[in-house]
């Protein structure tokens, strides 16, 4: 099949939560190589489906492995190019600048702390941040008590907003989100072993013929890129 | 004063400037198409806001632009029969008729009156129908009924009978006359029909190009030889008074009329009733001597009061008949042959049947119904 007009320009499909970090990395790439790059940010699910439908994406960076697995299984990726790029952690945040730190354990009366408020999360069965959060609460045996109080937002940013403006006293978001929002503070960090690893896998698509695809993928793991990602709160994947 | 008006209004290319005071009763607005009749009526109804206006009905000021008084239309209590019907499409005929009653003072519209109006207008079979399914004349009848049944303090009727056949008109006119005679609701009545105007009007206002050309009683306006050009020659005629003496067996009524006994087709009013008759100028024959052996039953002794030549072959002769004025229109040739000149004593001949039932009406009796005999 024919490629779209700008075949040589690199098109990256990336999960929306990467926008600020990846925009900076892309800027660096442009400065260093002088070549163009366009990044389309949307939900991982939408992007994955678009790749299945023949989208002109050269590179896909997903916010969770699930969609990457599906694309790989159906042969839309160059499997050998797939790698786990970044990792993130989830945190319990509270409204206000200086939340009392909490010790996460089955004994914690989280429900009592929430009171008649809400625990803001991303969709617990659909959106990665929500899935990880629910898994962590289950591991910590806290899910049962807080489940009725969970307000699920359609994405993790909306959950953050609920806590930021004080509509919900607590929320579970990525550490990266908590970092930049001054109206919330971290009350507790969920240990990495309480939930499946939070990974941002990346891979070159099967249809890609952009010569820059693999170099850019490599560039994402370069020290310069890494510094940017870390500045935005991401960690390099193990 | 029943209706007092002073209105000026300008449209691009047309200006209205009318002022008159009319006594109680029916004020007929008469004038050619486009002379400003509907505009004036709309001003009275409050549907347009004329540039300047002073409008008062029975002493109540409805609009006084100088004093800043303006009564909104719904407080004017007006029954307006529009030139174009304007029935409510979502209501059936019964609903349209009842509409005005919903807002009238409690008890103002009586069931009996509704039934009478429905019957008079022949709407009984149409009550469940929607306006969209009515014929042109049926719509107009409903519009008349709707206005009559809104317990109005003022009736505005813009060519209400134009879409109706003569038989239907003959049924509605007596009702309007009764309304005029039995109630004190002033009526502003727009019509192109001199017969209607002469029969109904207490006052005739003739409009031309937005200006009043004549205001007066129909007797004055219609019997004025100078009015002939305005009214149309065919409608010239005089109105005379008479008293019913006797109803004869052969269907005629004998009247004590101007200059002698008048015989007319039976008038449905008791003996002794005063009536008014409009006698068309073109129905009157003049004779030097009383003729005999002719079918015309009425031969009145008259004196020629004035003669006025028209532009064509005709002349209008004003006659004095026992103190009342009559008009006759004859040819110049006849006038010459008979030597018609002011002061001449002669005879006016009039066929009984030449007088149309709609030209006879009760002079103002309280309960006598001015129903012309239907023969």
């Amino acid at each position, binding site marked *: 099949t024919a490629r779209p007009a700008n075949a040589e320009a690199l098109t990256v499909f990336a999960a929306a939560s990467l926008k600020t970090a990846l925009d900076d990395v892309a800027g660096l790439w442009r400065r260093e190589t002088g070549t163009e790059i366009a990044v389309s940010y949307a*939900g991982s699910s939408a992007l994955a489906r678009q790749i299945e439908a023949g989208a002109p994406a050269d590179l896909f960076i997903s916010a969770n492995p699930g969609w990457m697995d599906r694309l790989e299984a159906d042969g839309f990726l160059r499997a050998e190019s797939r790698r786990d790029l970044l990792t993130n952690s989830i945190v319990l945040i509270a409204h206000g600048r200086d939340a009392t730190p909490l010790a996460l354990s089955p004994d914690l009366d989280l429900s009592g702390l929430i009171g008649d408020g809400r625990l803001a999360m991303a969709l617990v069965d659909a959106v990665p941040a929500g899935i990880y959060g629910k898994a962590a609460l289950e591991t910590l045996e806290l899910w049962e008590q807080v489940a009725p109080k969970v307000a699920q937002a359609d994405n993790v940013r*909306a959950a953050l*907003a609920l806590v930021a403006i004080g509509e919900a006293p607590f929320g579970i978001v990525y550490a990266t989100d908590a970092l930049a929002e001054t109206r919330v503070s971290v009350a507790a960090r969920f240990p990495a072993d309480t939930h499946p690893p939070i990974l941002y896998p990346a891979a070159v698509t099967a249809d890609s013929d952009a010569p820059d695809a693999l170099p850019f993928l490599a560039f994402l793991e370069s020290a310069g890129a890494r510094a940017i990602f870390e500045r935005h709160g991401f960690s390099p994947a193990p | 004063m029943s209706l007092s008006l002073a209105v000026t209004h300008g449209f691009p290319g047309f200006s209205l400037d009318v002022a008159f005071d009319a006594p109680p009763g029916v004020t007929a607005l008469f004038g050619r198409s486009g002379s400003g009749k509907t505009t004036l009526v709309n001003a009275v109804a409050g549907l347009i806001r004329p540039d300047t206006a002073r409008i008062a009905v029975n002493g109540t000021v409805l609009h006084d632009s100088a004093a800043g008084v303006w009564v909104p239309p719904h407080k004017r209590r007006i*029954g*307006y029969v529009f030139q174009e019907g304007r029935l409510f499409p979502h209501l059936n005929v019964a609903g349209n008729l009842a509409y005005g009653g919903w807002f009238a003072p409690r008890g103002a519209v009586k069931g009996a009156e509704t039934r009478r109006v429905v019957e008079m207008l022949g709407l009984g079979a149409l009550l469940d129908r929607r306006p*969209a399914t009515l014929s042109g004349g049926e719509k107009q009848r409903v519009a008349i009924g709707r206005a009559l049944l809104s317990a109005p303090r003022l009736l505005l009727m813009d060519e209400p009978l134009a879409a109706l056949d003569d038989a239907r008109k003959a049924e509605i006119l007596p009702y309007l006359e009764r309304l005029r005679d039995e109630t004190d609701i002033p009526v502003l009545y727009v019509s192109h029909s001199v017969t209607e105007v002469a029969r109904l009007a207490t006052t005739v206002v003739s409009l031309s190009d937005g200006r009043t050309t004549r205001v007066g009683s129909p007797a004055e306006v219609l019997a004025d030889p100078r009015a002939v050009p305005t009214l149309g020659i065919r409608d010239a005629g005089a109105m005379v008074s008479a008293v019913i003496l006797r109803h004869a067996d052969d269907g005629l009524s004998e009247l004590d009329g101007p200059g002698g006994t008048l015989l007319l087709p039976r008038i449905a009013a008791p003996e002794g009733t005063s009536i008014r008759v409009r006698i068309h100028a073109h129905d009157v024959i003049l004779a030097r001597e009383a003729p005999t052996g002719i079918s015309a039953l009425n031969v009145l002794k008259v004196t020629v009061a004035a003669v006025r030549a028209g532009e064509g072959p005709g002349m209008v002769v004003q006659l004095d008949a026992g103190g009342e004025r009559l008009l006759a229109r004859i040819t110049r040739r006849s006038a010459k042959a008979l030597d018609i000149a002011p002061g001449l004593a002669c005879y006016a001949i009039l066929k009984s049947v030449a007088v149309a039932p709609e030209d006879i009406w009760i002079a103002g009796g309280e309960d006598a119904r001015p129903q012309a005999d239907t023969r």
Partner: protein
Amino acid sequence: MPFLSADEWTAVALSLQVSVWATLASLPVGILVALALARGDFPGKQILNGLVHLPLILPPVVTGYILLVTFGRRGPVGGFLEEQLGIVLAFRWTGAALAAAIMAFPLMVRAIRLAIEAVDPKLEQAAGTLGASRLLVFVTVTLPLILPGIIAGAVLAFAKAMGEFGATITFVSNIPGQTQTLPTAIYAFLQVPGGEASALRLVLISVAVAMSALIVSEGVARLVARRIRGS
């Protein structure tokens, strides 16, 4: 296995509840605003007009966010409502109804406004001469004549409310049994690989409900119009 899970049934019921309330409760306001826009002549008319269209122009998320900061418990209006009237909108189905109503409002207003503009003012004048005040003219003449337009507006609003998602979830989140409407449930299914079949099931339900409403309303509108035109 039943066709729908209990949670899904609840979502269906809740969607209906939210949509019906959103439609009915906004109808009087919609009629008033449409009337003001169609007939009124006041300063700020264009601003009102713009405000009404705003939910159409803004991405739903933005509308939802604005609702959140305004009608949330910490928001100026939301706080007032809670303190003075005990009305809480945030995280409640009532809030979902508010969001749906606001998103559907421009559609409703435009339909009703068009209907009002099509009414012959001469009929209203006639009603005025017969003694009806402006309010009564509206109730007895204008309102019946614009009924087809009101129905059309209500149907559009209902359909929009059934499909509304972005503003709703931003404002009231997704709490199963309380604020989880069909569109949210569908959205959730579409986020996970392999959720398409479940989503499709809910889509079919949603379509079936909305279509029934549509067909019924068309029938009613046709009946009303025919009565006005005279069979």
